[in-house]
């Protein structure tokens, strides 16, 4: 398979963990049969969205090379990342794929000066040979996020605001001139008035620095605002993916529909759909071990087959939905429950 012109290419990636003690052992599949690819020619913002426990962070660790697949393949620039083992190669990979984490105050040691992280990154990756050179590199990176070295010098994390320090962690990630920035919930700990500033920064990086951003979030409103494509995750599976305007504008998968409906809109009066009572499961863990579609127990359009077999990926125009509603099966007469199934308007 040709993976050369792809930045990242995941083919049926699976990550499973064994949980429990000696007596009771179960397998938890945190990333289940995930396939997607990112183009290396056209930078984009790709969002992985889902609720807690949907496998977003495990997938992020996989993409950072921090975890290995249990089965399936992950290619980066045409290379299987499980074969990247030599320290020099590993470093070259890390230079190209840089993370930004959720809580900026936990990313930085409170007892260390913030700038030391920036200098360390520049020196360790060999971007600069000495501190003087590094100062230029660091200043450059900080200017890209709207700060400067002078503003940051001799400051500890607590002396900076949440927005500033999160921009500094983006600046740190930019020092090795990466091709991909992987941002795991970068704005969930940042105040509302500063949030848009970070989000806009990702747009700017895509357009001006040609960096591909993988944006991991549970916040569908900011996801809609910045991303080009989105993948919705549920219990390890990607249940729907495609261009963000289509997926969130007119969701196909019943789970995406529920998610979209549950996002409170900042508009009083447009409340009817949101105010409709919903039932919540008492436990969440069970859904992981459920056979068939993980959403079957909550799905209003559930059919018998949903509880027996994993639904296939169905391609509809330029998006993919993992749901029996869009297969031949749903059109057969015995599947009466599916008659009131939502038909995505194209």
């Amino acid at each position, binding site marked *: 398979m040709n993976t050369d012109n792809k930045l990242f290419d995941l083919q049926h990636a699976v990550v499973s963990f064994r949980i429990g003690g000696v007596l009771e052992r179960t397998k938890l599949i945190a990333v289940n049969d995930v396939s997607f690819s990112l183009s290396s020619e056209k930078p984009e913002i790709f969002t992985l969205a889902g609720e807690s426990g949907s496998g977003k962070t495990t997938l992020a660790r996989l993409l950072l090379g921090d975890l290995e697949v249990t089965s399936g393949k992950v290619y980066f620039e045409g290379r299987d990342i499980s074969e990247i083992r030599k320290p020099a190669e590993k470093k070259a990979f890390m230079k190209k794929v840089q993370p930004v984490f959720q809580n900026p105050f936990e990313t930085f040691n409170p007892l260390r000066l913030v700038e030391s992280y920036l200098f360390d990154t520049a020196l360790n990756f060999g971007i600069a040979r000495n501190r003087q050179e590094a100062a230029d590199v660091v200043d450059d990176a900080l200017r890209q996020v709207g700060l400067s070295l002078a503003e940051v010098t001799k400051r500890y994390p607590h002396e900076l605001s949440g927005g500033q320090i999160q921009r500094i962690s983006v600046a740190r990630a930019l020092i090795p001139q990466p091709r991909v920035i992987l941002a795991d919930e970068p704005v969930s700990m940042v105040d509302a008035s500063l949030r*848009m500033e970070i989000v806009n920064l990702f747009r700017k990086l895509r357009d001006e620095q040609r960096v591909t951003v993988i944006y991991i979030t549970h916040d569908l409103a900011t996801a809609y605002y910045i991303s080009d494509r989105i993948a919705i995750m549920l219990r390890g599976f990607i249940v729907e993916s495609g261009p963000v305007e289509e997926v969130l504008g007119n969701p196909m998968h019943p789970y995406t529909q529920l998610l979209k409906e549950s996002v409170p809109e900042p508009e009083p009066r447009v409340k009817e759909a949101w105010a409709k009572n*919903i039932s919540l499961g008492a436990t969440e863990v069970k859904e992981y071990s459920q056979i068939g579609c993980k959403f079957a127990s909550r799905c209003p359009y559930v059919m018998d087959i949903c509880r027996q077999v994993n639904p296939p990926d169905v391609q509809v125009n330029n998006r993919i939905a993992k749901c029996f509603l869009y297969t031949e099966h749903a059109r057969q007469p015995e599947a009466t429950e599916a008659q009131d199934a939502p038909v995505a308007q194209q």
Partner: protein
Amino acid sequence: MTLLSVNDLRAYYQTEVYGISRTVRAVDGVSFNLYPNEIYGVAGESSCGKTTLIKVISGNIKPPLKAYSGSVKYDFDGYEVDMMKISQEEMRRAVRWKEISYVMQGSMSVLNPVRKVIKTFEDIVETHQGIRDRKAFLEQTRMHINQLGLPAEVLDAYPHQLSGGMRQRLAIALATIFHPKLIIADEPTTALDVVVQRGVLQMLKNIQARSKNTVLLVTHDMAVHANVANRVMIMYAGRIAEEAPTEIIFKAPRHPYTRHLISSLPMIGVRETKTGLRGAPPNLANPPSGCRFHPRCPFAEEICRVEVPELITIEGQHRVACHLVKEGKL
């Protein structure tokens, strides 16, 4: 009738470490009223004084927090309470949990992890009311849980067997067991997923609609206020910037801070560029002079740097603290 009236409240944190004293003016001149049968939203960024305000009005004033001046007075159907004067004993016996209860952000962890959920209910009821007839208590608790739409089986489960959303709803069930007049909910859904958040907020709304009491809902999430609250207060740096019925806050905000906050909210369906606000929220140990928003305000004039704007009523229940609005320039 007024349930709670807060008048010019000032509550500061005062610390003295190695001879260096520091005063953080977390709540600085706040006045507002709460009425029966409403959901009142309090919004603001982190460290704007939201939590300090709740601490004072719920009677949790412990050093280094000190209430310097102002008054916090309740009227629970004729039973009047002055939070500044009440004794700890009376607070425990008659007010806390019976008249005012409190749901916190991580309140799913109020449940004792090594005992069944029902035991936590038992502890609370025993402390505040005493249990004479265990059967009647069990019956009552089951009924209460059922009324809230939760399955009675959860009472016999251990907390770790339940999902975060279920535990948060149990925390609300605990808080409402004596049908208090005021429920204070501090970021009750911040750590939850959107679907679960919706379930928890719906339950809170249903309880309020049924028992016609007052809910004080504190969250930084404006979208939650839009869907739940009847009136909203916007706090900035320890003071009230604006207060109005929810519709007005969203449709016709006046204060420059509120206007920015509303216009920058991301929404599904909108991709036009929205800007952030320059600068950072002020440090309350050393707040800016005059209007505390002036260093970040795009319209600031000389008067804003010098004089503290008073909170004026511009129309009905709509109050704003801004010089420019007062002068008719905004």
